[in-house]
């Protein structure tokens, strides 16, 4: 809770500085002979407020990371911590229990051993809270006083505030790079740790997937980490079954909406397709598991296939295809709209019917855009998680039978990271290696698709 209080404190101090600086600038203005000063009073106010709020925010950000560690260090050095178990899960559990009691989020301890630690925790928390608040006040006061004293009638507050604003805007836009970097670094780092335990060759070319999170982490069995069945399942569900559904339906929907439908119909159908795209994936997953998968199994029984499982690649792929329809449709819509009207008119003038114009002129002309759209759709389908988690099953089968359970990369990432395994086990780390492969593949698909789209647009401009 304490960072929130510090934040409010920072904003309050900033407001105080703002008001004080503005009042001072007003007096300058009144006292000056011309009634003008180098910047409007409000810029002086912002100058001081920024000087107070920015350092305090930086401090609060750092403090909210450091303070919990300082607190637990001081608790561990207290005499009550001497008889804690030396390491491992139990120690963490006791500590976290004592912490939650001390902070008031739990009423009483469950584990007797945590009782003695509550008081040290409470004391340490109180001590560091006071330190945090005091440090905030000191920083705010020093920065505020320094900036306040710099305000003069000829002080160019506006240019300084604007420079600060530009810097903040630049920093905000750097967050995107930082995020990308964070993703790459964290994935690469954990992937290297994984490949330190399991050979990359086993991982990329092995055909048996069955990591055992309970096995001895020091001697992992490389033959259990073959990811080929996962890659196959991902491609089969996301790039084959889903696309068999999504490409024809999405393309035909787009063609009908842009070429045939009257405006009233379009006004109603377009939002409906947008709703289809807005339904959360967990709802699709539930729909696949509850309605589609049993229906497919029953249908398979009816035609005499007795070993159909209740979780099937087909169910997940079909529902995923439906989910992707609006996506393909809107990409196709854009590409067809980008084809110059003259090409369409020319074809119609030669006596071709509308459908002939579409099939022989518009679609071929829009093909690069449509292909790019399909690539984006594939990258979306293979990254889709909830539908396969809920409907595709956990068995890593390397088969072409759509009625069998199949597993995907995303499913295994979820399974490996939500299980019981410890964070240093190769089974857990394999999730990061899978994530890295997924990231690189989707990145590649998107990169190519965006270039194709760009070149395609340029061709008609």
């Amino acid at each position, binding site marked *: 809770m304490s960072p929130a209080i510090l934040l409010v404190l920072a904003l309050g101090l900033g407001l105080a500085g703002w008001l004080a600086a503005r009042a001072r600038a007003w007096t300058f203005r009144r006292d000056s002979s011309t009634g003008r000063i180098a910047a409007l009073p409000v810029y002086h106010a912002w100058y001081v407020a920024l000087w107070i709020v920015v350092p305090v925010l930086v401090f609060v950000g750092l403090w909210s990371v450091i303070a*919990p560690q300082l607190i637990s260090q001081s608790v561990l050095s207290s005499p009550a911590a001497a008889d804690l178990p030396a390491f491992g899960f139990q120690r963490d559990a006791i500590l976290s229990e004592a912490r939650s009691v001390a902070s008031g989020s739990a009423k009483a301890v469950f584990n007797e051993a945590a009782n003695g630690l509550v008081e040290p925790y409470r004391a340490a928390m109180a001590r560091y809270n006071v330190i945090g608040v005091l440090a905030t006040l000191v920083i705010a006061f020093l920065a505020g006083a320094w900036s306040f004293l710099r305000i003069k009638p000829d002080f160019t507050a506006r240019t300084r505030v604007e420079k600060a604003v530009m810097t903040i805007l630049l920093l905000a836009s750097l967050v995107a790079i930082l995020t990308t970097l964070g993703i790459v670094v*964290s994935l690469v780092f954990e992937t290297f740790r994984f490949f330190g335990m399991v050979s990359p060759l086993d991982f990329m070319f092995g055909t048996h997937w069955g990591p055992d999170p309970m096995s001895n982490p020091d001697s992992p069995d490389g033959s259990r980490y073959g990811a080929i069945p996962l890659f196959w399942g991902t491609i089969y569900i996301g790039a084959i079954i889903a696309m068999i559904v999504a490409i024809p339906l999405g393309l035909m929907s787009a063609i009908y909406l842009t070429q045939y439908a009257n405006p009233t119909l379009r006004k109603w159908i377009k939002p409906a397709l947008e709703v289809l795209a807005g339904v959360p994936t967990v*709802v699709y997953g539930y729909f696949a598991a509850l309605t589609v998968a049993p229906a497919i199994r029953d249908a398979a029984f009816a035609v005499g296939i007795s070993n159909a499982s209740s979780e099937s690649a087909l169910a997940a792929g079909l529902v995923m295809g439906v989910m992707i329809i609006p996506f393909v449709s809107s990409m196709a819509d854009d590409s067809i709209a980008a084809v110059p009207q003259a090409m369409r008119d020319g074809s119609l003038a030669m006596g071709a019917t509308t459908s002939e114009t579409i099939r022989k002129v518009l679609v071929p002309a829009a093909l690069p855009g449509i292909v790019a759209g399909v690539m984006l759709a594939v990258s979306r389908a293979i990254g889709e998680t909830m539908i396969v988690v809920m409907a595709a099953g956990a068995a890593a089968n390397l088969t072409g039978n759509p009625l069998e359970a199949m597993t995907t990369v995303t499913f295994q990432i979820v399974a490996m990271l939500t299980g019981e395994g410890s964070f240093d086990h190769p089974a857990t780390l394999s999730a990061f290696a899978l994530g890295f492969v997924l990231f690189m593949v989707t990145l590649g698909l998107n990169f190519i698709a965006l270039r194709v789209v760009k070149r395609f647009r340029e061709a008609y401009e």
Partner: protein
Amino acid sequence: MSDRLAPTRTAEFEARLKKRYAAERRFKMAGLGAILFSVGVLAFLLVTMGFNGIGGFQRAEMDVPIDFTQAGLSGDPALLAQPDAAQTLEAQGLPSIVDFYAEQQLGSEGAAQISASAWRLVADGIIADPTILRETVTFSLPASPKLAAGLNGEGAPEMRALAKTLSDEGKLETKLDLGFLERADATDPQQVGIWGALKGSMLTMIVTLLMAFPIGVMAALYLEEYAPKNRWTDLIEVSINNLAAVPSIIFGLLGLAVFLWIFPNMRSAPLIGGMTLALMTMPVIVISGRNAIKAVPPSIRDGALAVGASPVQVVFHHVLPLALPGILTGTIIGMARALGETAPLLMIGMRAFVATPPQDFTSPATVLPVQIFLWSDEIDRGFVERTSAAIIVLLIFLLLMNGLAIYLRNRFEKKW
């Protein structure tokens, strides 16, 4: 008639034309069929969820009159005002009192099928209004999941028989259960509620909005208005476009590896979930924000510059207010996507069983879509309807958000 036609219109030509027109009609029908199929699946999905979900807002309850004048509970208001009043009542034997009256009303078999924690409902009633201790009050107590399944014609045969007997006597009824919107997760499908997950979702969304909106808008302003054309800007643009297309589960891995490494004590906290979703939502806001800023005509900027505004003043006094409706529309759509997102939150541990609504941004929480996922995994049949009901709640929220976005777009968007 035929002699007026061109000489090229021979019989073969007519036949070919007929075929071509038939192909045209088939093509058109195929297009219509594709659209009808998509809309049909949507309608089927919504109807299935709606149909199942109605049952989720109801539960099987049994009316039990309890004569508190005979029960001998002490109605000391001071004791009942304590936070642990329920435990006090338990110590005074409230559970067995409830059992006794249930047996009188329903017979021993029926009483055995009253939900085990039914006395808590009675305790809540007493705490809310201690004066009922001087009268006979009828409570509607939830039936056990087995009996509820029996009432639906499922489950064990003896339960079905018992449910039939009780409901024929008018003692077992399916009643509207508005408490579903007020309770949190539980192991018994009769006792679960959605409020815990809903509150977790709201806390998470607040964090997401507070982080993604300012950063996204500032980044959009910088890229659209100030950024020089150079390699760095290109790099920023490429990474934003790519982030918008990265699978959501990758953001979960990032949250797990980075945020939980910095804040190891905050597993499954809305703060971490919100930060993870903020990274996912920010590119959406940047992209839609840039489009909105681009739509503001250059004449506005030129006019402001001409009367002496500085570049920062031009943007903050003129461009931003004009672009704000468009930015807000994009933000709401991005937030709606974040609200329905499940996978990244599974990664950072928001799948724990949380039986009390989260108190603040750092206490363990779950969110609506994760709750739906968890319930969908439950074996008990009673959870099927509850899951659909939770889905209805989620869809209503998404519909409201998208409706707001459309309203904003129509109300404030200017065509220049």
